[in-house]
């Protein structure tokens, strides 16, 4: 199939996003967004990155959050895997664009690509593994040094279902989190404990500043054809 389309001019992208986010007038280009990002004008798109030691349970947390599943073995992550999930928080919806990164030490050098521009981060360790907690602290330092200063950062002590094998006390992690202004939860991807909660909490804490609470370009919208961004390229699909 050959299409005749034109690139959306750079300056129009933000406007188009705004239009696309207003359900009453426009449809988003993909269906899954359509149902999720909804009513209110305050829809947030938030990039979220998961960091932490290999095997801490990053992928499991994401899988639990996005699909409500838990698998004993899932494919190991190379580079990073991408997921998206939308949450309704109060009167707004937050669409998370989630990057689940690979944990092996040498992949560390790729991390900046994933946390660059991220609005939120979850740093995961395994409560049965002290090394993973040490590694988590390193990630905290790195984000403090290099990440977006307004980033909402959560510390997740995962595998909380393995109480009998615990090696990192709740108290130690809680104190550390407080000292570093992270919010802290112990989670279990396996038992589905605190998984949705941690994402919800992040969603609540995201700064709303950048996103207009009211649509300032209402006037412009009315003048546009009612099919949204695709209307500018009728040839597609």
């Amino acid at each position, binding site marked *: 199939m050959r299409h005749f389309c034109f690139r959306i001019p750079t300056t129009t992208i933000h406007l188009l996003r705004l239009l696309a986010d207003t359900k009453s007038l426009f449809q988003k280009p993909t269906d899954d*967004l359509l149902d999720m990002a909804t009513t209110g004008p305050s829809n947030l798109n938030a990039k979220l990155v998961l960091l932490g030691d290999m095997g801490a349970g990053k992928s499991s947390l994401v899988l639990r959050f996005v699909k409500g599943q838990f698998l004993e073995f899932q494919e190991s992550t190379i580079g990073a895997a991408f997921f998206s999930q939308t949450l309704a928080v109060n009167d707004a919806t937050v669409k998370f664009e989630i990057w689940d990164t690979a944990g092996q030490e040498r992949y560390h050098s790729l991390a900046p690509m994933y946390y660059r521009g991220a609005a939120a981060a979850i740093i995961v360790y395994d409560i049965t593994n002290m090394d993973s907690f040490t590694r988590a602290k390193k990630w905290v330092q790195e984000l403090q040094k290099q990440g977006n200063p307004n980033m909402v950062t959560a510390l997740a002590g995962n595998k909380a279902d393995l109480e009998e094998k615990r090696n990192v006390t709740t108290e130690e992690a809680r104190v550390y989190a407080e000292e570093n202004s992270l919010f802290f939860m112990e989670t279990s991807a396996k038992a589905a404990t605190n998984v949705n909660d941690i994402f919800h909490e992040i969603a609540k804490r995201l700064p709303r500043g950048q996103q207009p609470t009211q649509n300032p370009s209402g006037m412009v919208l009315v003048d546009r054809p009612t099919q949204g961004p695709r209307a500018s390229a009728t040839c597609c699909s």
Partner: protein
Amino acid sequence: MVSSTTPIINQSSIGPLIMYPFQRKTDLPFEIQPDFTFLRQSIHARRANIVVNFQDLYGFMVQGNVDDVNVLNEVREKVREQGRVWWGMEANRGANWYLRTYASSGDLKSSLRFSVLVNGMTLKKLIRKGIPPSLRPKVWFSLSGAAKKKSTVPDSYYDDLTAAVSDKITPATKQIDHDLPRTFPGHPWLDTPEGHAAVRRVLVGYSFRDSDVGYCQGLNYVAAMLLLVMKTEEEAFWMLAVLLENVLVNDCYTDNLSGCHVEQRVFKDLLTKKCPRLSAHLETLGFDVSLVATEWFLCLFSKSLPSETTMRVWDVLFYEGAKVLFNVALAIFKMKEEELLMTLYVGDVIKIIQDTTHNIFDPDDLLTVALDTISFMTTNLSKQRKKQETVVMEELDQRLRRLNTRKLSVKS
């Protein structure tokens, strides 16, 4: 991708397509017997646009619609056709004719030199159209240089190596063990105790052969695919060795993946050159192409493309070199250029790319674009790499320094 309520045609009606009895040094002779009797049930499925699970040429379970199954059937037919062509060549020019393209011209008469040239041209064309899976082990092994590499050490090298390291525990072996059950989970041979053991021996063996590489996540998928193709552990091992030591750019998998960073930068520049509008659009969205391309280069597409499509890329990789990775990566973007130009969010870009790669069941769809539509100078490639190498080293260095300063200041 598919909701759990979607009716799935029961796999049990297909019967065993592939068998993987395991033998250590000799063949792992799994038979590929395309048998699509279950297609008959699916005539209704087409109307209902039902998602079917089916097993592909290398035993992977794939999800697709009925059209995808039909495409895969056509691919099988094309593969058989290619087989006939290859066997015909062998009958005409003699067994191992493809090896003679490498003979040094010095000790050949001019007429023979001409035939070498002809062989070379034919071979390149033939390989681009695909090596039949039955000949793949033999052709890869000799053309990649793996056979030559193996011939420089004693015959017992692999056995001695694996025996010597079998009960050693190192950070690399720990990571390998961690990844074994997570390497193509659910594959009928790879995800069995025998499969795990074979992948383990290859990876652990290699981690001792090159301690700079040790083990890097991603190699598990590469080694697994090599085992499926080569069918013997030892040959898979040597293919891995030649891949890391000769075919790919240096340091793709070592320490801080600097080689991988270099390739990513080169790729970004190429995309800007080949698809300037797209590249500019993605940049406005804040989409770094490495977000998807890193995995492609590290796993050599094995985690993204259907297996036979991956193998077709590797056919070219082992004969023409790592340049093909750029062609293929560019082709994926090129194939969806117009659609991608209409995206507004990073998430949409990724969805398009993933849907595309997962569904390229006909390798020719991809390779035609990759090899015919897209062309660039190989000489530029090595120049580009040199240039980016310096930049990458500086960047990695700076980053390390920044992180270390932080550590010191925290301590003090």
